[in-house]
C-alpha cells in the first residue's frame, strides 16, 4: 500500500502535466477558446428548449434550467468515459517506451473532463442569473453529487479503457450505448411521464440518482435523504472497485496488444 502511494506521488506531477497539455491543445489557437465550452451547452439548451416546449408541450417549470442541470451532469459522464476509453490505446507510444503506472491515463482523461465540467457549470450559473431563477442555500451541497459521479465515471473509465485494448470496436458500440443511456435518464423529459414499472427500471440507472441529486440541491432546495446518499455512494464505490480489479488484472498485457 505504502508503495502504491509512493509511486502515485512520484507520478502526480506527470498527471498534472498531462492534464495541462490536454488543456493547452484544446484551447490554443481558437479565438473564442474557453468561451466555446461555456457557449456550447447554452446553445444546446436553446435548441432543446425550443424543440421540446413547442413540440411536445412538456409541463416542466423552468425547463431551461431543468435541461441544463441534467445535461451538464450527463455530458460530464459521457465525456469522461468516452475520452478515457481510448486513453490507453492512444498512449501506446509512451506505454511501449517507458514504465508508467497505467491508471494515470484514464485518470487524466477523467480529471480533464472534470476541469471542463467547471466551464459547463459557469454556463449553468449564467443561465440561472439571466433567467432570474432563485436558488436556495442547498446549492452549497452541489459538489457532493459531482464527486459521486466523478468516482463513478472513473470506475467505468477503468473498465472501458482496459477492454478497449483487447476489443477495439467497443468504441463504436459505446456510442450507441450512451445514446440509449441518455434516454434512460430523465434529462429532456420529466420524471412524471414515466409509468411505475418504467420508473423501477430507471432507478437501476446510477445516473438517474446523480442527476436527481444534483437537481434536488440546485433546483428544488431539497436536502437528499441518507438513503439517497447511500445508494449513490454504493453505485460509485462498487463501480470503482470493479473497475480497479479489471484494470489491475489486465494491465500487464496492455503493452502486448497496442
Amino acid at each position, binding site marked *: 500500500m505504502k508503495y502504491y502511494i509512493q509511486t502515485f506521488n512520484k*507520478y502526480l*506531477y506527470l498527471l498534472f502535466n498531462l492534464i495541462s*497539455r490536454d488543456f493547452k491543445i484544446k484551447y490554443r489557437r481558437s479565438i473564442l477558446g474557453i468561451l466555446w465550452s461555456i457557449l456550447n451547452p447554452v446553445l444546446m439548451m436553446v435548441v432543446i428548449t425550443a424543440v421540446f416546449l413547442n413540440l411536445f408541450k412538456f409541463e416542466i417549470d423552468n425547463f431551461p434550467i431543468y435541461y441544463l442541470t441534467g445535461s451538464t451532469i450527463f455530458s460530464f459522464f459521457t465525456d469522461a468515459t468516452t475520452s478515457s476509453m481510448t486513453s490507453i490505446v492512444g498512449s501506446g507510444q*509512451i506505454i*511501449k517506451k*517507458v514504465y508508467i503506472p497505467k491508471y494515470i491515463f484514464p485518470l487524466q482523461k477523467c480529471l480533464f473532463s472534470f476541469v471542463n465540467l467547471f466551464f459547463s457549470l459557469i454556463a449553468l450559473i449564467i443561465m440561472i442569473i439571466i433567467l432570474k431563477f432563485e436558488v436556495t442555500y442547498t446549492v452549497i451541497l452541489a459538489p457532493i453529487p459531482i464527486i459521486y459521479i466523478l468516482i463513478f465515471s472513473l470506475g467505468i473509465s477503468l473498465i472501458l479503457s482496459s477492454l478497449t485494448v483487447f*476489443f477495439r470496436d467497443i468504441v463504436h458500440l459505446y456510442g450507441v450505448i450512451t445514446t440509449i443511456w441518455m434516454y434512460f435518464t430523465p434529462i429532456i423529459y420529466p420524471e412524471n411521464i414515466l409509468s411505475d414499472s418504467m420508473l423501477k427500471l430507471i432507478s437501476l440507472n446510477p445516473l438517474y440518482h446523480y442527476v436527481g441529486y444534483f437537481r434536488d440541491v440546485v433546483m428544488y432546495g431539497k436536502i437528499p435523504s441518507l438513503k439517497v446518499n447511500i445508494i449513490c455512494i454504493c453505485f460509485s464505490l462498487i463501480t470503482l472497485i470493479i473497475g480497479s480489479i479489471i484494470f489491475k488484472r489486465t494491465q*500487464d498485457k496492455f503493452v502486448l496488444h497496442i
Partner: protein
Amino acid sequence: MNDKIGDICMNSVQISNVSMHFNTNKQKMNSLKEYCIGLIKRQIDYSKFIALNDISFNIKKGSVVGIVGLNGSGKSTLLKLIAGVLKPTKGKIIVTGVIAPLIELGAGFDMELTARENIYLNGAVLGFSKKMIQSKFEDIVDFSEVREFIDVPMKNYSSGMVARIAFAIATIVNPDILIVDEILSVGDFQFQKKCEDRISEMMKNNTTVIIVSHSIEQIERLCERVVWIEKGILKMNDNTDIVCEAYKNS
C-alpha cells in the same frame, strides 16, 4: 537469510528464470466482432513466440555489462524487461536502484507543444519531480543547443534537434543503473562525441551500466562482462575476452 540480503545488496539486477512469450495470432485479433466469429468457428488459436527462454543471471553493482547477439535474439526484449516496460511471462526480475533507460528516447513528446513544455512533460514521464526539472532546465537547454528555439512548437524542429533534447532530458539524473541501447546514433559527430562523454561521465560514479551494441569493438572497449543471447537462450555469460572470442568465431 543473511546470504540473501548480501546478494541483493551486491546485485543491481537479478534475473531468475525469466521467460517471455508473445502471442502471434495469424490475424491480430483485437475486436469484439473478430473474437465472436472466432469463438463460433472455434478458431482462437494462440501460436506462441518465445522471445526469451528461462534466462537467469545477475548483474553486480557498479559493473559494466554488455549484451550481444544477432538481430531478433531478444536483446531489446531483455532491456525492456529490466526497465519494467514489459512484464515477464514467467520468472522474476529484481532491480535495486533508479534506472535511466536510454532505450527509446523522447517518450511522450507532443509535437504541438513548445520545447520548453515538452521538457517538463517528458521529464514527468520519466518520473522526475518539478523541482528537479527546474533545477536542471538550463543544463538541458545548453546541452541540446536549442536555446533560440525554446518557445517554438516542436513540430518545426529537425529530427536531430528533437533527439538532442530527448537525450539531454534522459541523462540529467544520476542513475544507479544505466541502460544504453546501441550507443546513440544521435545528431552529428560532434554531438555524438558529447553524448559519449556524458555517458562515460555517468559510468564513473559506481553506476551499473548495461550496454547493447552490435559493435563488438565497442563492447570490448567498455565492458567487464558480456552476456551472449542467441534465439532467446542464454548462451554465455563470462568475462569479456572469453565471450567476445567465442562470439566472433561463431
